[in-house]
């Protein structure tokens, strides 16, 4: 019985909340990148104003640094996305 309810709940979540949650996480991810640039920008050559304070945050972001750097390299600007490619239109 519980599993049926569980399945139904998952189904409803999939129909309604899933998209919202995914979207929220996407925005969260984008904000994370911005946050990393303004605090750890020095790591990719963007000077950060008070390095003394940004160093204080460093221990907490150690695990994210690799992913963030990769994300920054692969990051595409709006006009670089396929749907805005003029040649393909």
């Amino acid at each position, binding site marked *: 019985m519980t599993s049926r309810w569980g399945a139904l709940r998952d189904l409803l979540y999939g129909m309604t909340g899933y998209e919202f949650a995914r979207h929220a996480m996407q925005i969260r991810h984008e904000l994370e990148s911005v946050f990393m640039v303004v605090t750890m920008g020095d790591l990719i050559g963007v000077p950060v104003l008070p390095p*003394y*304070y940004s160093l204080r945050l460093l221990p907490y972001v150690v695990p994210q640094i690799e992913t963030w750097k990769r994300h920054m390299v692969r990051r595409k600007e709006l006009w670089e996305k396929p749907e805005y490619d003029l040649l393909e239109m």
Partner: protein
Amino acid sequence: MSLRRVFESQPHRRYIMFGGKGGLGKTTLSATAAFWLAGQGKRVLIFSVDPQASLSDIFQRDIFGKGPVPIVQNLWAEEVDADRRIREYQDEIRKKIRDMYGLDRVPEEIDNYIQAASAEPAMEESAIFDAVVDIIVKGDYDYYIYDLVPLGHALYYLSMAKVYDEWITKITKLREDMRQYDQMAATMRREKVLEEDQILNELIYIRDRINASSRILTDRAQTAFFFVVVPEEMIILDTKRAAELFARFDVPIAGYVVNRVLPRELIQASIPEYLRNRITMQDRYLKEITATFGSQILAYVPEMERDVTGLPMIERLAERLFGEASGPEGPEPAGGRGAP
């Protein structure tokens, strides 16, 4: 109003700064004010963050990097060693990383970053800034006398408070926004309460410190900034410009102290032409200072017969500056004030 009256009538102004171009006697006046206040029974800390600080010289004791060192009863002096502070801070960060992730050593890339960040000039500036925050937010002295580096730098430090203030407020807001999206996703997924965001906690800690110091430095009720000026043309022009800039950064200017005034009684004695010319020149600029700064002038400090170092000289100057007879009355012009 005299300098003494300013201190006596505004006891809440506990953060005191003397600013001016290099070599005008900022450290001398800071030390003298600190000495006098300590003599009045107030607990006073005089401190400097300048790597070439002169507090050790004026008190004739090596106090560099030794924390607050007692000088006389109620008076402590401190010279911050920024380099050592940065080194200790780096080690603290490294240790935190090792502890948090159970590592034997900090990953090379991260360590390189810590080293590179620490080599930047901006690191020293922000470390010094934090050292000042550290000193003033503790608030365990009655008076804090900040022996500033020359004007340009002084303004730089003060404006830094404003810039850091904005930076930290913005990124704290950004972090809070991120938290909201986390919260939103968690609610959709019917997940339990999120664990605490340690970064947000750190940001709030940093923000509160920066905000507090920024508030203190620009608060007219708690802070008094005195300009030191000498009767010379370039110094007057520079001080006028600096005063305008300072006003723009909301620095609470409390008045002007005119230093290095040659004793007027010399003119009666037979003195060489050279000295007579200097006195006449000073007279001209003293008139200009009076016309420009008027009632904001709090004291005229005489040029002493020798440099002010060591406690006996500081005491003598304190007597001249804060004694009962002290006041903002300008020195008698060389030709006599009432001379027809």
